[in-house]
C-alpha cells in the first residue's frame, strides 16, 4: 500500500531527519560535534601512529594521509553498529506499524554518511594546506563513494536483520568493527603489509576503496583498476545477499523484535 518509490524515499528522509535531530537536539554545540570527533582523532592518531609509531604513509604528509582515512572510517564505524541496532531500537515502530522496514537501517547509514561528510569539509582545508594536486582524476571519487556507500549499506542491512533474531550480532559487530579498524588501512599504508599476507588482507573490500580514495585525493592520480574491481564485485554480491535475506526475514520482524 505504501510501497511506491516516492513514499519510500519520503519515509527514509523522515527517518534520517529523525536520527539527526534526535542526536543533535538538546546539545549546546549541535552539529559542531560532528567536527570535534574527527579533529580529536586526527590529533591522537597523528601523535600516536604518525610520530610515536612512525606508521608508513607512502610518503604523504601523515596528517593528510590519516585524515582521509578518518573521514571514511567515520562512515564505516558510525554506520555498522548503529544500523545493526536500528531495527531493535525502533521496536515500537517495527512491531506496530506496517511500512518497508529496510528504510530504518538505511536511515542509520544515511546519518553516518552525514557525519562523515561534515568531517570531509575539513579535508578540503587539509588538501589546500598540503597543496595536494587536484586533477581530473577527482571524478573517480564518485564511483568510489558509491561503492563504499553500497558496501556499507548492504552489510548494515544484513546485520540489522540478523540482530532482530540473534541479539549476539550486536556484540559481534562491536568487536568486529574494532578488529576491522586494524585490518583496514586507516592509520597506515597498505603497502606495509607483508606480501605473504596480502591475499588474505585484500579479502577486506575496504582495502581497495581506501587505497583508491587516497590515490585520487593525495596523488591526484587515477586509482589502479585492479584494486577496485574486487570491492565492486564484493559489493554487488553482498547487495544481492542483503536483499534476499531482508525480503525473507522482514515478515517476521514484528513478532521477534
Amino acid at each position: 500500500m505504501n510501497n511506491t518509490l516516492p513514499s519510500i524515499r519520503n519515509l527514509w528522509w523522515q527517518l534520517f531527519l529523525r536520527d539527526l535531530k534526535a542526536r543533535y537536539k538538546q546539545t549546546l554545540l549541535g552539529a559542531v560535534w560532528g567536527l570535534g570527533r574527527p579533529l580529536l582523532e586526527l590529533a591522537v592518531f597523528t601523535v600516536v601512529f604518525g610520530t610515536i609509531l612512525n606508521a608508513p604513509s607512502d610518503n604523504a604528509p601523515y596528517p593528510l594521509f590519516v585524515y582521509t582515512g578518518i573521514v571514511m572510517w567515520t562512515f564505516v564505524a558510525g554506520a555498522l553498529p548503529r544500523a545493526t541496532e536500528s531495527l531493535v531500537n525502533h521496536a515500537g515502530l517495527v512491531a506496530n506499524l506496517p511500512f518497508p522496514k529496510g528504510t530504518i537501517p538505511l536511515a542509520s547509514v544515511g546519518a553516518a554518511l552525514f557525519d562523515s561528510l561534515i568531517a570531509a569539509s575539513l579535508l578540503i582545508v587539509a588538501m589546500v594546506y598540503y597543496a595536494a594536486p587536484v586533477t581530473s582524476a577527482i571524478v573517480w571519487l564518485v564511483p568510489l563513494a558509491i561503492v563504499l556507500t553500497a558496501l556499507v549499506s548492504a552489510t548494515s542491512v544484513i546485520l540489522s536483520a540478523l540482530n532482530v533474531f540473534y541479539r549476539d550480532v550486536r556484540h559481534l559487530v562491536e568487536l568486529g568493527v574494532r578488529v576491522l579498524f586494524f585490518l583496514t588501512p586507516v592509520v597506515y599504508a597498505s603497502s606495509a603489509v607483508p606480501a605473504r599476507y596480502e591475499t588474505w588482507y585484500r579479502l577486506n573490500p575496504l582495502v581497495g576503496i581506501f587505497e583508491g580514495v587516497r590515490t585520487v585525493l593525495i596523488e591526484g592520480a587515477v586509482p589502479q583498476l585492479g584494486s577496485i574491481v574486487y570491492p565492486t564485485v564484493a559489493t554487488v554480491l553482498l547487495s544481492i545477499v542483503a536483499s534476499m535475506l531482508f525480503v525473507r526475514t522482514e515478515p517476521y520482524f514484528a513478532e521477534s523484535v
Partner: protein
Amino acid sequence: MSTPIVVTNLWKRFRLRHRSIRDLAYDLWPRNRAESRELRRSFWALRDVSFDVQSGETFGIVGANGSGKSTILKLMAGIMHPTRGQMQVTGRVALLSHLGAGFHSELSGVENVFLQGAIYGIDKHDLTTRLEAIISFAECEQFRDVPVKFYSSGMRLRLAFAIATHIEPEVLLIDEALAVGDTAFRDKCLDRILSFHRAGTTMIVVSHERYLIEQLCDRSILLESGSLTREGSSADVFVTYEHAIQTRQREQGMIAEVGASPNSPLRIDGVEIVGTAPGVEAVIHTDDSLRIRIQLTAIRDVQSAVVGVQVAKEWHILHGTRSNRQGVTIDAVANDSVTVEIEYERVSLSGGSYLLHVLILEHPLAREAVLRFKQAARFRIIQSEREGVGLVRIPHRWRIVR
C-alpha cells in the same frame, strides 16, 4: 459490493523463545533432540480462521484475552505475516492500537506527524494540508513545537489517534483503542469513528464492550483460543461469548455452580422465576411483575439469616435488596427446608437481558455475604419502542403544549 477483506484458512504460530546464536547452532546441527524441541516451542495463536468483510461493513471481533484478536489485526495491517493461509486486504489500512508507540520523544509534535505520515505512506504535501486538522483534533496547538517527551499521556494518545484517523483510511482496524483516555476524549474518538461508519469506511472493531460492538458492528465473530467458534449478528455472538465466560468462571469456581458454600448456613437448592421452567430465560414485558422463588435448606441451625437478591445487567448491579430490610429473616434448624419469595411489583427496566444474583448473609448486621450464587436466574424484558431506550424505563408522555 466489493469485499476488501478476505481471510481464508488463516494460521499463525509464534515462537515462545528468543533466539540466540545457540539456537542457530541447534538449527544447523540438531545434536540434542529434546533441547532442540524445547527451543522450537511454539504456540498457535490462530487456527484455521476464515471470514470476509464487505465494503462499508463494520465487523466485530470478540473474544477473551489471548484468543488471537490482536494477532488478526496485526496480520491484516501487514505488520505480521500468516504462517499458513491467505489474507487479502485492499485499500489503505490504519490500525488503532498501541497509540503513540511510534513516536520519537525527542521530536516535536509536528515533526512526529510528518514521521508517522511518512510511515503511513502519505507524501509531505498531502500531510501539510492535513496538519492543522490533526493538530486541532489532538488539541495540542500550544504544544505543536514541543518535544513529545513533555506531552501528557493523554496528549500523546490524542495526537496518535488524530494522525491515524486523518490519513483517510479505507480500512480502519480498532483494537480497544477507545479503552484509553478521559471521557471527553473517548466521546470525541467515538464520534470520529461513527463518522467513518456513516461515511462507509470498512471497519473492524475489537472490544470487550458489548455496547460498542452492538452499536457499531453489523456482524461479529467469536474467537476462542485462536479458533473461530461463532459468526453472526453481534448480539448473538456476544451472548455466546458471555456464555463461554460464565462456563469458564464456573469451571474455575468463580461462580458457585450450586448455591452452596462451606461457610453458609443455608444452601440454595433452586431459584425459579415463577411461571417459567427452571433454566429457561423468562420473558416479561416492561412494567410486568416478577416473582422469584428461592428454595433453601439449612445446613446447620441458624438464627436470623438474611437473603439478598440483585438484579444485574452484565457487570452492573441495577438493584439490590435484603430481606431483613423488610423484617424478613430466617430461623431454621438443620435440614429444614425454607422457601422464600420476592415479588417485584413492576420491573421498570428497558428491553434487554438481565441476571439475578442471590446472596446469603449470616446475620442482618453482616457486611459480607457468606454465599453468592451469581447468575442464579436470568430474564429478558421486551418493550415497545414507544417506551424509549436506555437502562431503565421512565414512564412518560409526549404532548404539544402550544
